């Protein structure tokens, strides 16, 4: 009975739909400007998913609208449809093919995850990030932890390991252009790994609800050449306040190994 369906035409319509949706959606830069080595990898993964999703969506739409067009009851027709209860081969197909698609998506995601969290060859720079209602502050190694509030400076083209701390409630560290986000959790140290690759000024956004000031909990992020960065750090004259020093002293609570994506 399936011979009566224009399978080839329906498939062609699905492919055409996939192509059309992909042609419109893939060129758009959904995630905005990218400014880290992780950004192009994540954006590419998104584009692959857009194409796969366009296929699934087109298939569903073609099936739905073909059925609505072809099998719509004429006015006054009170008869029943054909008593078809199923088709084992078709049911196996729409169990197995989606399984393969999602396992592919999972495997590919795993690969991208490992790549973006891979430790760099050289020595990474470690920056300690402190969050509290409703402010960010940053401590840099060397010179007994140079410290400043509200403005983060990092060198370009060098891997940075952010050690994230929270003093009161959970906050979350997100620079959209870097595509990287991780919660700052009170009581433990969490880590985010970023290699910024574009000089510029960005915004650090708190993305975990932390109280009435959550909306305005932002900080300025400056990515600059190493020399400028060194000069800037050397110019810092505040030292790390006591409560934050206590947190840094306690390295035992480091629960999140870096770059262990699933390993």
């Amino acid at each position, binding site marked *: 009975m399936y011979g009566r369906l224009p399978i080839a035409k329906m498939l062609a319509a699905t492919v055409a739909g996939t192509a059309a949706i992909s042609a419109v959606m893939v060129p758009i830069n959904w995630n905005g400007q990218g400014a880290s080595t992780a950004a192009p990898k994540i954006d590419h993964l998104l584009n692959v998913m857009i194409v796969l999703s366009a296929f699934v969506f087109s298939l569903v739409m073609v099936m739905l609208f073909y*059925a609505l067009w072809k099998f719509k009851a004429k006015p006054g027709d009170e008869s*029943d449809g054909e008593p078809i209860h199923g088709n084992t081969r078709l049911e196996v197909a729409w169990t197995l093919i989606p399984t393969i698609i999602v396992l592919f998506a999972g495997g590919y995601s795993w690969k991208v995850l490992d790549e973006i969290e891979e430790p760099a060859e050289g020595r990474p720079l470690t920056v300690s990030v402190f969050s509290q209602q409703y402010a960010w502050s940053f401590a840099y190694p060397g010179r007994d932890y140079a410290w400043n509030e509200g403005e983060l400076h990092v060198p370009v083209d060098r891997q940075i390991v952010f050690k994230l701390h929270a003093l009161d409630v959970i906050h979350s560290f997100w620079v959209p252009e870097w595509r990287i986000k991780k919660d700052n959790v009170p009581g433990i140290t969490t880590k985010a790994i970023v290699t910024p690759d574009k000089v510029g000024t960005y915004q650090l956004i708190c993305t975990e609800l932390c109280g009435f000031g959550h909306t305005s909990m932002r900080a300025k992020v400056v990515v600059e050449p190493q020399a400028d960065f060194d000069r800037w750090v050397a110019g810092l004259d505040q030292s790390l306040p006591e409560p934050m020093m206590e947190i840094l002293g306690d390295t035992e609570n480091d629960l999140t190994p870096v770059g262990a994506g699933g390993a």
Partner: protein
Amino acid sequence: MLAAIKRPGWIRGALGALAAGAFGFGLVIALRAISDLPLYETEQTGYPHVIVPLITAPLGFLAGFGCFDYWLRWAAGLPTIPEDHSQHGATSWRDYFRFNTDHKVIGIQYIVTTFFFFFVGGLMAMMIRAELAQPGTQIVDAATFNSLFSTHAVLMIFVFVIPVFAGIANYVLPLMIGAPDMAFPRLNALSFWMLPLAGLMFIGSFLAPGGAFDAGWTGYAPLSTGAPLGQSFFNIGVQFAGASSIATALNFLVTIITMRAPGMTFWRMPLLVWANLSTSLLVVAATPFIAGVQFMVLFDRVLHTNFFQFAAGGDVISYQHIFWFYSHPAVYIMMLPGFGIISEVISTHARKPIFGYRLMALALIGIVVLSYSVWAHHMFVAGMFSWLRVPMMITTLLIAVPTGIKIFSWLGTLFFGKIHTYSTAMLFALAFIVTFTIGGISGVMLGMVPIDIHVSDTYFIVAHIHFVLFGGSVFTIFAGIYHWFPKMTGRMYDEKLGRVHFWGTLVGTWGTFVPMHWVGMDGMPRRVADYAEQFGNWNLLISCFAFILGAVQLVFLYNMVVSWRFGPRAEANPWRANSIEWQVSSPPPIFNFPEIPRVVGGPYEFGVPGAKHAIMPGEGAEVPAKEPAVAGSSTTAGASS
């Protein structure tokens, strides 16, 4: 007057609430007096003077209202009152405001109550969108904004979507399986009456000093453990909503397993019954986790335990693990009953048997099993053990497979059918397939760790959850309400107004929630009262569509209220459906069936010559001695009797 006090009802209920509330308050004062503590100290102690009465007063109301009368007499060895069925069924509108054991009355009570909370929660959504229409702060301040979106979500989840499905199933399911009522009618009534108490507690938290709870519906510790009094209203309200949910699920399980009409094997159950069986399996095992974790937060707040106090060695992230171990299955608790509704509506209006009935039922069970193993996908950026991410990603992606099976099987059901689209229920069912496919696709994207790292806690999440919860669950709820409206009220609703409601809702849903994906990916975080200028135009557009979406719900309200009162009389079976609830009058008789029907075939045998699902009482004579070849002609449905 004395008689009114002795009789179960509103007067005794109010007195019970007052007495039990006073008892709770007195207990706190007495214990503090014994311990030589200041009697009225509040902020520093987490307000025990409010919290203890908040637990005792609702219990006093329930006792006074009559929820425990029969059990208490029985437990105390008193002579039981002979069952005269005076608490069963409704003869006037007043009977809907009483402790009533009829599953049909309880079903209506559930649906009307939950829709009341839907409109309250919807009003909050309108205020949220009004504030977000422009950058800056115009209508509410940031703290009130946090309270608004928290209460909006809690009302919609705990006292609308989850219980409205319980209400629909309460009405329809016993009829569908040919049972005279639910297995435990008194427990059923108690389950319902706990629900408005929970809802009123959530809304009442706006009156608490410090305002309503504002830590989001997720109530993450330690933000919630340090929040003002309103948070305790959430902690306790969830207990009542959860207890209601668990008791109903147990009731459904026992009803479905033991009370099916003779001949209704598991493979002859309508998919709505399968869906509620699966949902109930999730509720009984998962809901205790959220009840437990909210108690832990309450204890941290009031008793100074240290479950989540990091300074005292508490573990902050464990809150999220326990919370999501319930709250991820909860999204399926909010979706599986809807899947059941869609199966009934599509099969009936396409005049076709469900395509791959058995795989459809097994897919439900597959979702139940998988949904217990995916909770940590809400925590990819939460700082949990990083090795947990990949396995949780794989199970999350795999759960798309049984969901896909359902989508494709509904489409397969349409092929070679005779599709009727005159009913608003069918329009919502078809639109549900499209909208839910989008929600499913964004769900798969969120399941992929690298994408989730970027969009987690942004408007992309808000877009996804509303596509699956509004475009998914709420569309199925509308489909179900329209589909069974004639059965429940005995009246027909107005299809023209139904169409206005449908198209308005569809356009409103897409216009509101599609652009939210874009602003989220582009960098707009969720749960903010203010945002960067660059998102201003999109947000204005989103707010405009949201107002359309809100306004068109008033058309629905008008249609339901006026049709219930003045609509044309409905026939027993206006949609020419097969399942048993359509073979009795609309509305059904008080005791459902004069005699239990006999099930002789599958529920969806459209187009099968001579096939029959059930033989109703009084129909026996028409059936030939040898039963028609109901099962023989089918491949998947209807095992031989």
